[in-house]
């Protein structure tokens, strides 16, 4: 172990470590700017200068290797004046005001100005390159704020091995230039962001509009993870897949969600919508990468999953959909005895009864449910239960995860005529194998993913003419783009911007829906929809049957829990009744599988944390 003395303090240094790194590690601050812990040192800013006993002159501590017995001074009259002059020289070409800078308060140069105590009054202001451009994706380049420390150049060249950036002197001014001039893309930039990460000033910064909607900088820089409802560590598993380590990747996904294979087929991919790469060219195919991990990974995750010793507590979960089973899995891992009660004959909830088998094959989610049961979860099918019954039976906590299985019919005349169905009814019957006769043509009212699932199933069941009508214009439909394109691909007739007035049956038994064009659609503060119709735009759409795919709500008869607009009211997953928790669609309304999974995991955490009060 090397020992060096800095300002009368003896500190330890590692072999080959620079004096500056050793000092910083030991908590001795030496001012520095061009040094960055992830980059090779070049000793160009001259702020880290020190005097070394027995050696002439002044030395940059970042480029001086620590040697045993070195005696170092970081302050002296000579050092102080040189350090100050170096700052003044850099400041002469830098804007004087800090307050307008986006890096204000996080700028290393600003901190150094204050720490060393310099102003720009003694020297001449030197004109600098004022190139400011937002033309590149992701980053803003503001060369007027550049102090030419060269960190970005080293990050690009030495760390990433790309070498897009370099020093260039023209017209007597030095600037950081892009290979081939022009924009970053022209210089073959990979947009890794390393240069932005190491920039000490506001010269390189992330575009504000990319940061604005996120709470913290980190969440903005890893939007795939922060926009995933379950906060799956996307970059980590994508990196594992890249290295071909599918099992590690799968273990990463399973940290947050016990349905990786299911998600890899039907997740709504909030991660891909947020992917920063989308600003450069197109989003990373995260869901497909997940599928590679899910289909090729081994059971390594089982040895990675932590299991706590038994708590002796009993938790009952009502509902075996993604939310309920996720909660059950993590509760079992935490050492609780978990019983899951399912009203229907088989477990899976909407995975089984809502999502058509052509999108999500049964064996995929069944094997993942099997994994959950293997973790010690007991499943009771054909067992409708209410929270009160379970509490009376002696369970310590109840989790309500019943989902939203009751299809809504629009409150219009004729909504209960024969051959009218809700999407839930239709999809469930299709899953149970009891095909509902729709006739030769069907009209689906609604434009979400569920509506397209209905259309897809109807198409696969040989219905000749499939029509879909919804309130929203085409570009505001809630269904995924792919779903819409797939539908149009097999001949779906899509009617956008319609409101519905009544359903009537004609003599042949056909159903006709009276529609009216929508001129304007808005939602007020209370969530109520305001529809302004186009005058005299009434028209009829006629089909053999009509399916309402306009939303679902939970079935909560006999639960005696506080509700608001048909949804359970919770506070941190606690319902209005003690020891009764709730999660998933029954709380949030119909969202997505990944939302349900995230909600289940959070509820499991809330239940686990509450056990002190049991």
């Amino acid at each position, binding site marked *: 172990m090397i020992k060096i003395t800095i300002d009368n303090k003896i500190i330890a240094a590692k072999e080959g470590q620079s004096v500056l790194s050793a000092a910083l590690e030991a908590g001795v601050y030496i001012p520095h700017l061009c040094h960055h812990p992830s980059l090779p040192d*070049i*000793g*160009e*800013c*001259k702020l880290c*200068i020190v005097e070394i006993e027995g050696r002439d*002159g*002044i030395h940059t501590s970042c480029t001086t290797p620590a040697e045993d017995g070195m005696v170092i001074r970081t302050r002296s009259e000579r050092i102080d004046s*040189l350090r100050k*002059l*170096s700052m003044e*020289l*850099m400041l*002469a*070409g830098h804007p004087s005001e800090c307050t307008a800078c986006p890096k204000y308060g996080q700028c290393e140069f600003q901190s150094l100005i204050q720490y060393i105590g310099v102003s720009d009054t*003694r*020297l*001449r202001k*030197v004109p600098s390159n004022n190139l400011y451009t937002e033309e590149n994706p992701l980053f803003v380049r503001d060369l007027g704020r550049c102090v*030419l420390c*060269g960190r970005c150049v080293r990050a690009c060249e030495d760390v990433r091995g790309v070498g897009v950036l370099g*020093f*260039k*002197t*023209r*017209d*007597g*001014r*030095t600037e950081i230039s892009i290979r081939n001039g022009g924009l970053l893309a022209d210089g073959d930039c990979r947009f890794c962001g390393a240069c932005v990460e190491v920039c000490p000033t506001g010269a390189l910064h992330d575009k504000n509009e990319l940061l604005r909607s996120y709470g913290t900088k980190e969440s903005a820089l890893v939007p795939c993870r922060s926009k995933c409802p379950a906060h799956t560590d996307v970059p980590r598993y994508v990196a594992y897949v890249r290295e071909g380590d599918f099992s590690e990747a799968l273990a990463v996904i399973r940290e947050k969600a016990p349905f990786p294979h299911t998600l890899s087929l039907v997740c709504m991919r909030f991660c891909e919508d947020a992917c920063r790469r989308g600003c450069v060219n197109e989003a990373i195919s995260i869901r497909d990468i997940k599928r590679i991990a899910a289909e090729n990974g081994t059971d390594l995750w089982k040895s990675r999953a932590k299991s706590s010793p038994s708590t002796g507590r009993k938790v009952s979960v009502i509902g075996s959909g993604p939310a309920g089973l996720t909660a059950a899995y993590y509760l079992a891992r935490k050492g609780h005895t978990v019983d899951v009660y399912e009203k229907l004959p088989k477990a899976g909830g909407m995975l089984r009864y809502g999502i058509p088998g052509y999108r999500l094959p049964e064996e995929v989610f069944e094997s993942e449910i099997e994994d959950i049961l293997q973790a010690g979860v007991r499943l009771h099918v054909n067992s409708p239960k209410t929270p009160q019954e379970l509490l009376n039976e002696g369970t310590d906590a109840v989790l309500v995860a019943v989902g939203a299985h009751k299809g809504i019919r629009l409150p219009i005349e004729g909504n209960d005529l024969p051959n009218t169905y809700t999407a839930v009814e239709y999809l469930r019957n299709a899953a149970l194998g009891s095909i509902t006769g729709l006739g030769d043509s069907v009209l689906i009212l609604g434009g979400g993913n569920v509506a397209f699932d209905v259309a897809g199933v109807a198409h696969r069941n040989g219905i000749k003419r499939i029509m879909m009508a919804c309130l929203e214009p085409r570009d505001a439909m809630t269904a995924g783009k792919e779903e819409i394109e797939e539908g149009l691909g097999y001949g779906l007739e899509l009617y956008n911007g319609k409101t519905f007035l009544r359903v009537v049956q004609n003599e042949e038994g056909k159903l006709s829906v009276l529609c009216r064009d929508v001129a304007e659609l808005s939602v007020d503060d209370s969530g109520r929809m305001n529809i302004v119709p186009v005058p005299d735009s009434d028209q009829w759409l006629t089909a053999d049957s009509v399916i309402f795919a306009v939303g679902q709500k939970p079935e909560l008869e006999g639960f005696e829990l506080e509700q608001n607009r048909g949804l359970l009211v919770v506070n941190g997953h606690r319902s209005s009744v003690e020891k009764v928790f709730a999660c998933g669609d029954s709380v949030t309304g119909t969202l997505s599988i990944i939302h349900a999974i995230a909600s289940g995991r959070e509820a499991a955490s809330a239940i686990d944390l509450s056990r002190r009060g049991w």
Partner: protein
Amino acid sequence: MQCNKMISNINGIGFPYSGERDRCSVDYVFRLLDQLRNTLCGKGVFCRDAASQLYSIVGSIRGGEGKSGDVGLIREICQASLQLADCEMTREAVKEILSLLDTDGENWDAHITRRRCPSLSCESLTIFYIDPAVCDGCGKCTDICPESAIDGSPALIHVIDREVCTRCAACEPVCPVSAIKRADVAGVPPKTPDAPVPVGSFKAEPVRKGLRKGLRP
């Protein structure tokens, strides 16, 4: 990082300073610094920022806008660069500047305190005029002047409008009879015609020194 630029990388200016060739040490240092800042690699503070700062200070001295502390400031920056610059080129250049401040201090003092360039090298501190006794009215200076500051027609004595002239010195080398001359900006202005007159017709009145302000002899 050590940069291996040598003072021989600087070309376009003779090095070192030679009084005969370069005449004014301020102007020479200004041109030396211009070469330096365009030649250096741009990585180190005491090369890059020192050179542009010195260029800026010397530039203002050369333009008659020097301040009393400037020589001290130049010395401080040069001495720091001598210790901390990474290349031999910068170190040799600042060594040269330091030595010129010592050996030619009077010249620097004339520029800063009296706003004069004794050798009439620094254009901003001089007046350009066309000697009416020499001009043959060829018109070459009119053609080359980028500011159209020279008035005249063939066979007329040409006249420089001092308000418009930017002292770029472009006309100097093109005059075949060397009629374009410099005068000290702080001295007595040379007598020239107010507007072009035929060659040979202008007679300069003798200047009566000291009486221009209406003082009696």
